[in-house]
Every structure is written in C-alpha cells, then in structure tokens.
C-alpha cells in the first residue's frame, strides 16, 4: 500500500549510488548505512511503499538523528532535494503525539511575535524603525538571534547603508519547517515577506535558505552576499580568523566564497579542513539531541584549537551558540564572533 508522504518525483531521483555517504556527518559517526542519506532515502521509500509500519522505531530514530545539514545535496549526482524530503518526512513522522516535546515547545514559542519583539527590546537588538520603507533594504532580526546575540543586528545595521529595520517582524519559520511543521514554516516565511516587501538582508544562513525557498532567490541576501556587493571600505585587523560555514547557506544556496572573500580582506584567514561540515547545532538539533550534537562538534573543536585562532567566525546564530558552548566547556581562548560583528570592528575602528 502506498501512502503519499513524499513527493514521488523527488524520491524517485535517488539512484542509490552512495556518493552522499562520505559527506554525511552522522554516517561519519556510525559508518552505518542506516544513518547515511542513501539509507534514509531507502527508509523513506519503504515508508512510502508501505513496507515499513508508520511507527517503525528505525523510521522514528533516523528521521530525528539526521542533522538536516544537507551536505549530501552538493555531492549528489542525481540532484535529489534531500532537504525537502526530510521536511516531508518529519511532517509525517512528528505528527500529533509523535512530536518530540522540545520541538513542540519551540514550534509554539517562536510563533509569538510580541514575545520576540519584547525579547529583542530587552536584549537591545537593533531597534526597529517602524513600517518597512519601500525602497530600503530591510534588515531581518531573526527570532533566536535578536534574543541570544543582539549585537549581531546592531553590527549589521552599521554595515548596510540606509537599511531599515521594520517593526512587526516575526520568525521566518525555518525552525518549524525543520521540526515537522512545514506548513507553519511556509506561512511564517510568507508573512515575513509581507512585513518586509522588497530586499531582505539576513545575518542567518539558515533563515536565508528557508526564505529563498518561499520568497525566491532575488528577494533574499545573506549579509556576506549583500556586503560583497556594496562599497564599504574595511581596514585590516591584526587577527587570525577561520570560518564556520552555515550548512544551509553553503549546501542550500551555494554561498561559500562571499564570507571568505570578506574575511581575507579584513584579517589573516585560515581555512579549517572541516569549515564546510556541520558543527552539530543544526537549527534546534543541539537542543533536541545534545549528546549527538556534541559528538559531531568534538573533532571540529580539536581543529579550531590547533589552528591558533583569535576568532572563529560564524554566519548563523545556531552555530554561534553551539561553538560558544563547546569552546567554553574546554576553557578555550578562541572567541566566537559573528561575521557582522567582525566586519563592524573593521569598518568602524571606534567601536
């Protein structure tokens, strides 16, 4: 019996070649086909074709164990849209009472615009400037970022000339889409698009990829993309830095050069071997599965400490939280900084 959990055309694309295996962080942990992208697609097919029961424990475990980093997509010869399939899988797998409690709390909490606005004000994120100006680029504050790392939006505001910060912005819905509620994810993205008509600039790679999926590529810029196209002059800072890519920015949107080019302009840049690999934050993964998130992160922390860095630069709030926590636990001297903050230091010596 076939049940329509997945878009059959997307599922059919996989040719089972296995080229995704070496790109997958959970496969690297286990060397087990079950926790590889190909293995998960085989599981999805078994669910779709009715070969496995909907409450099969392996289906439940593997849909949750996947980081959703989409590192399998750029290496896929057949162009399987794995991220979309994973969203469809979790929509089905985490219905009703099967949803992990922490995911449910996050899904509900992040929908509350008033709470986000209050949090942002209390934490002194970049102040909003009223309704969206018609021609200005709009700075997105994010949900987690404005509360956890308010200095990021303040820094970004200094970098983008004439940017406005429209009031009434909510969450973009990426976290809902990744946590089994893609319908709300889409609705929130469209609502944010309405609140900020025209060009949206975001300091979060994860939000950028989600917004692009629903609003289109031409309306959304991640900060490094936007600043690369601008005329800002930077001075060089006497610091050694490395980058942690945002998975969805790199694997979903293909943006990897822009942040590196900027870092090379302002600092002594070193490329970490695992710069493009997931840090384990993976949206809300580090909250839902902290132990696995720590296992994914551990080898990266060794690399960071061995590289003699002053700063590790991030382009996504999830990575920022994960890396700060990981390095702090090791009492590391390496500081974690958002690209916007480092660029603001280079653009504005007085700050």
């Amino acid at each position: 019996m076939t049940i329509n959990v997945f878009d059959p055309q997307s599922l059919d694309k996989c040719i089972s070649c296995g080229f995704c295996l070496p790109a997958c962080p959970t496969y690297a942990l286990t060397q087990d086909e079950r926790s590889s992208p190909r293995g998960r697609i085989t599981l999805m097919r078994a669910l779709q074709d009715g070969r496995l029961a909907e409450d099969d424990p392996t289906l439940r475990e593997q849909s949750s164990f996947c980081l959703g980093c989409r590192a399998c997509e750029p290496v896929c010869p057949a162009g399987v849209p794995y991220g979309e399939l994973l969203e469809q899988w979790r929509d089905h797998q985490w219905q009703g009472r099967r949803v992990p409690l922490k995911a449910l709390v996050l899904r509900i909490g992040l929908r509350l615009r008033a709470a986000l606005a209050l949090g942002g004000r209390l934490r002194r994120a970049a102040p909003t400037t009223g309704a969206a100006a018609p021609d200005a680029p709009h700075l997105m504050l994010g949900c987690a970022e404005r509360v956890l790392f308010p200095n990021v939006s303040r820094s970004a505001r200094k970098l983008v000339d004439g940017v406005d910060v429209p009031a009434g912005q909510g969450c973009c819905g990426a976290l809902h889409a990744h946590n089994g509620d893609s319908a709300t994810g889409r609705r929130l993205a469209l609502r944010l698009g309405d609140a900020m008509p025209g060009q949206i600039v975001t300091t979060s790679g994860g939000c950028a990829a989600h917004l692009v999926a629903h609003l289109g590529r031409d309306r959304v810029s991640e900060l490094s993309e936007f600043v690369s196209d601008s005329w800002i002059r930077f001075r060089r800072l006497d610091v050694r830095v490395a980058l942690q890519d945002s998975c969805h920015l790199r694997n979903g949107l293909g943006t990897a050069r822009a942040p590196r080019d900027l870092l090379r302009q302002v600092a002594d840049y070193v490329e970490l071997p695992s710069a493009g690999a997931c840090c384990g934050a993976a949206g809300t993964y580090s909250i839902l599965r902290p132990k696995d998130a720590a296992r994914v992160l551990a080898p990266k922390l060794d690399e960071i400490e061995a590289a003699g860095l002053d700063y590790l630069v991030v382009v996504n709030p999830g990575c920022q939280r994960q890396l700060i926590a990981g390095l702090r636990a090791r009492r590391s001297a390496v500081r974690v900084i958002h690209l916007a903050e480092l660029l603001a230091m280079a653009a504005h010596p007085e700050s």
Partner: protein
Amino acid sequence: MVPLAASFLDRLRAIAGADHVLWRPGDLEPYARDATPLHRAVPDAVVAPATTGEVAAILKLATETGTPVTPRGAGSNLAAATLAEHGGIVLSLTRMNRIKEVSGDELLAVVEPGVSTAALAAAAARAGLLYPPDPGSRTVSTVGGNVATCAGGLRGLKYGVTRNYVLGLEAVLPTGEVLRTGGRLWKDVAGYDITRLLTGSEGTLAVITEVTVGLLPMPPTSRTGIAYFDSLADAGTAVTAIIGSGILPATLEFLDQRCIEAVEQYAQLGLDREAGALLLYGDDGAEDAVRDTMTRMAAACTAAGARGIELAQDVTTSEDLLAARRCCLPALSRLAPITMLEDVTVPRPRIAEMVATIEDIAARHGVVCATFGHAGDGNLHPTIVFDPGDEAARAGAERAFDEIFHAALKLDGTITGEHGVGAAKRPWLEHRLGADQMALLRRLKAAFDPAGILNPGKLGS
C-alpha cells in the same frame, strides 16, 4: 530461507556486541540495497565486526549453522554483488577503517578493508606517493570492496587496475581460519597466487580483513586536453595512432554524441555540441616529458581528422576539462531516474565498432542509451535511462543489454571490465567462461567454502 533463530542472534551479539547486530525490519531495509538499480534483497540480520577475530568467529558460526554471509563495504557496487539474495547475514566491514601504515621507504600501505579508496589515496599523497587505482566511486568505495571486485578506473591503461597494486592480504576463510597471503614483497612466488585469486572473487571465497597495497612516487605534473571528432570512428583512429606511436597516456577517455549533449545540457561547459565524439587525453610525469607527449597526442588527433582541440594551460583548466568526463553520470542520471550503467569491454581497436553496435541495438529496442568510457583500455559504459514506472522501457533495456553483452563477447570482449559479475550479470558468466571454466570455479569455491555460505548465488557458487 528460515528466519534466524533468537539463539543465533544472541551468539552474534556475544561476538560483535549488541549495538553492532541489526535484526529489526527497519534496520535491515537500508542494507537491502546497493548501487545497483532495480535490485533489492532484505537480509535476516546485519553484523558489523571491528576486528579480524570477530570476523573469524562470525564465519565459523555461520559455517556451523549453514547461514549465508554476504560481505559488504560501502555498497557502491553496480552488479548487486553485496546483496543477500539468499538471505542470511550481511557482514558490514565499514567499522574496520584504520590506515595502519604508509611507508615511503617500502612504497606500500597497510589498511583495513573499510578504509575508503579516497582516504588511502590522500594518505599516500601526504607522503608524496600515488595509489593509482581510481574507480569512479573512489570517494565512497572501500579498499576491501575494490580488492573484492578488482576495481578499475580512469588510469587503467598506464597504471593497471587494483590487482596490480595488491601485494598481500589477510583474509578469513568461511571455516574461520585466518590466512596471510603475499605480504610486503613485489617478488614472491611461494605457492599458488592466492592474493590474485581473492582479488576479484567478490566475497565468495574469503573475507578480506587487511590489505597491503603497493604505491608509486607521485608524478610531479599532469596535463589534459580535449579533441573533438566528427565520429567515434575518427576518435578510434586517433587512439590507435597515439598508442601505436609508443605513448602510454594516463588519461584517454571518450564521450559519444549523446553524452556530449547531456553533459552540455547539465553543466554548460561550452563543449562542441556538433561533434560526434569527444576524446579526453592526458598524461602525467616529468614536466618536459608530459609536454612532449601532449604535443604528440594533439598531432595524432589532428592527423585523424580532429575538428577541434583544447589544451589545458594549467591544473585548474585541466580540472575544467576533466569535468566533461566527471559530469557524465550526473548528466545522464538527470535524463531519467533509473540509470543502468554497464561496463562491457572490447579490444581497443574495436571500440568504434562496439559503440556503433550499441547504438544500433538501442535504436532497435527503442531505449535511450549513451556511451562513455575508457578508450585506452576498451572499457565502455553504455548507459540506459528510463522512468521507474515505464515497464516497456525496462523490458527494452533488459533485452538491449542482453544483446550488448553477446555482441561484446563476439568481438572478443567481456561482459564486465571493472564492475564485477555479482547477481546482476551472473546469467551471462558462463557465456564468457565456458562450461569447463565454470566447473573449475565451482570446485575452487567448494575448496574454500565447503558449506557454501559465502555470498551464495555469486561467481562459483
């Protein structure tokens, strides 16, 4: 197949640890597939040992109980060689993935079977050494799997294939004895060459638990060029002329017209879409020598009627040109989801004739077929694509491949150059080997595996 008894699973757990024995339906499902389209076989259990001792204990238990065992590396093979078609257990060797040694003094490396081919090549490169076999799946495939299938690659003509680099093996017989064959020596003729016999034995004779491979000094430079021809026959003339003039190029790959079209549609590399064939040629070695062979190969192509030639000026553009070949699989797999990639091989002078025959067969069965491959060693990859629900195309593809295999045999070729026989091509094996050799294969198999538990249904079983 009778499902495995609970007591059997308990004994497996006692050997490999409970975490490394899988038995629930959802856990077995991912191991029911490898990279072979349209093939699926669910095992009764999966066990992932970490040591040679564990492998030996598992095999002994399997022989004692008559349980089939199918060894598996990364599952990237294209002939259903790692599917448990007779049930039983899949023996996954991916946890045995340590690089034990890379020796620049002895020009060799010692690795466990689950190390990926790319990881071995990278470790060798860090020591300034080259591991030449480079199968298309090298980022995924394991060294153990490469040895078990005698994997080939793009460098076959100049450097040979996996068997040319296997110096020694540690392998476990189905009855549990641990053998060490060959070793660290290039010269060693003591006894039958069991190392060579196990290489390409597709997990039917013994389970490989350690591999000693020979390495070469890394060539200091490499260059690549592309030549376009009106027809594959002209490209074939160029290949014959190049090799006839005493050059043994590192790269000599071709794409037929359909491949050029598909690659261009997919990647917009700026290839000449009007060309009937594309020849990718290249060499590696000392700078001066490479410059000389590249000039002579270009001249041979021009003399054979090449309509255009592009030469890479540096490593970066070399990579761009090689992309034409690397894009074949992604480009073809995007034409339709089921991508059947075969690997018949014919003597080098008969490539053009074989490709023409393939085109004719494909047309008669109304299937979409494109061919690319290794012009240097006659190894062709006719690729037929179709949609999953299209039963007529599927039947047409099966008939077309049957005729393609027979046509290759008629031209003194073989049914598989580098992918292996597996379950997928087993029906054609006797056509290639003859009844007497098949009987010998069965006797060999029985000598190694009296209970017939190792990868049943493949090769000599």
